[in-house]
């Protein structure tokens, strides 16, 4: 299957006030693939991820320059409907962040936000999303219970279900497994592999094995720059850049 670019950056710069966090990033992220961002802490992985759904808008004095497009449309164009962008580009955060509501209401939150009120339709969406996030069997008898009563791993899968419920085209995952125990992390990795068939996934990870196991493409960032980007196998077997090699062999970071 030929690769189709869904997200493209051209000379993207990003600033937090005076601090430049991204420098001239140019990258084509393919649709229906898992792309992993790796690199040492503070290199700008999260910043780049959060430019894609404009979560950085919350930070005063933060601004982007250059081009970043989603299906050919400029993400930072003035007429972009940010809520619609975020519906189409979902996000899963490092720490599970379910709302203090019931499991059902958590998953139904997005669909309700986008105007779905019909109960039967909501029921269906909630069930489908929970199934897709591989957590239906664990919560189907406690949909009315508070989401806060779930374990950390369950909460994270609930957050994935919540993100899937609005049928995004892209799912951004920012170290979504790093706060979890290894078994929960492995379940989410498996889940990611299943979801790849239906969504474009862009994930940040600190875990080299994880990147190698589940991603199709890997991007290596260093100090705000994209050092190398390519097929995961190639990056891990024959890195072209010395710094990439040093990083994946654990010589720094």
């Amino acid at each position, binding site marked *: 299957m030929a690769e189709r670019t869904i997200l493209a950056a051209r000379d993207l710069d990003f600033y937090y006030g005076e601090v430049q966090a991204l420098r001239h990033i140019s990258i084509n992220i393919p649709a229906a693939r898992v792309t992993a961002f790796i690199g040492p802490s503070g290199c700008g992985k999260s910043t780049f991820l959060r430019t894609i*759904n404009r*979560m950085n808008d*919350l930070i*005063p004095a933060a601004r982007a320059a250059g081009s970043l497009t989603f299906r050919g449309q400029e993400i930072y164009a003035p007429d972009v409907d940010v*809520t*619609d*962008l*975020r*519906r189409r580009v*979902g*996000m899963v*955060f490092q*720490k599970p*962040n*379910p*709302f*203090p*509501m*019931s499991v*059902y*209401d958590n998953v139904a*939150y*997005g669909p309700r*936000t*986008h105007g779905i009120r019909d*109960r*039967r339709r*909501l*029921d269906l969406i909630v*069930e489908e999303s929970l199934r897709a996030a591989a957590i239906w069997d664990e919560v189907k*008898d406690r*949909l*009315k219970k*508070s989401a806060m009563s779930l374990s950390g791993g369950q909460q994270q899968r609930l*957050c994935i279900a*919540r*993100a899937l419920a*609005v049928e995004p085209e892209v799912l951004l995952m920012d170290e979504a497994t790093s706060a979890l125990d290894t078994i929960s992390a492995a379940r989410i990795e498996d889940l990611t592999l299943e979801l790849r068939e239906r969504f474009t996934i862009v994930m940040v990870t600190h875990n080299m094995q994880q990147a190698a196991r589940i991603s199709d493409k890997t991007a290596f960032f260093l100090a705000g720059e994209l050092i190398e980007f390519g097929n995961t196998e190639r990056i891990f077997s024959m890195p072209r850049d010395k710094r990439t090699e040093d990083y994946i062999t654990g010589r720094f970071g």
Partner: protein
Amino acid sequence: MARNARPALRRQLYSAAVRLLVWLSASVCCCLLAVLIGYICWRGLPGLSWELLTSEESLLQGTAGLLPSLLNTLCVVAVSLAAALPLGVGAAIYLTEYARSRRLTAAVEFASEVLSGIPSILYALVGVIVFCSALGLQKTLLAGSLTLAIMTLPTILRTTQESLRTVPRSYREGALSLGSGRWRMIATVVLPSCVDGIVTGCILAAGRVVGESAVLMYTAGLSTAMQDFSTIQGIMRASGSTLAVALYVYAKERADFAAAFAAATVLLALSALINLAARLAGRRLGRRQRRKKHPAALTRRQGGPHG
């Protein structure tokens, strides 16, 4: 070892002394409170009767009656909260969630800090000038309530602001990342987790209203006679004393200390009641918010496998 023994001993003595001191402060506080409450009850309870609570003062028979003041108090609490709550919560939401200018927020915070420290007699002055005269409300419960609304506004504003700030950033990010607009995020995720803080603000405000006398003497009147609450006009025109003011009237003008202490006891019970009720309401509301809009279909479906 030997060299360490003395500092260790000193440290132990020191910490024992500190513990004793804080224990003493705590007990003094508790004792003062207990003595105060005990004394009020001891003086007030004998004079307290069903008769007193359910009748109005009769100058002919020379009997006191607290019913009008009790009703006035409830009325003033309700009206002033009804006015201050939406304003205070609304302003807090604007300042913490929408305002772009740091300076504006800081200025308002400073102003409300100052306002909450102003002696209430100054609010009385404002009430007399603005509500009683300029707006033509005269000395009425309405004028008094609105003056108290202004007086309690900073309290509600600040407590709401504080609790808005404690809402985890991750909740907000979660809501926004799902395509929620700012207002929907506030209404569905932020405010529900602030209910406790807002209720606390209301309790504090209601406490101040129940205990306030100076403002109401000037803006709401001193009458201990029954007011007409049956018509809108009657309510608009009602003028009279709340329990705290009645306490003053009975003690100072009638020299009826039995009635004054009875009023004090009722006042005490009332503020305890308001506190309790608000807490209960807060807990209810918080729980309901969390469960709200639960499809009935879900309850049905939970029985069967796929509904």
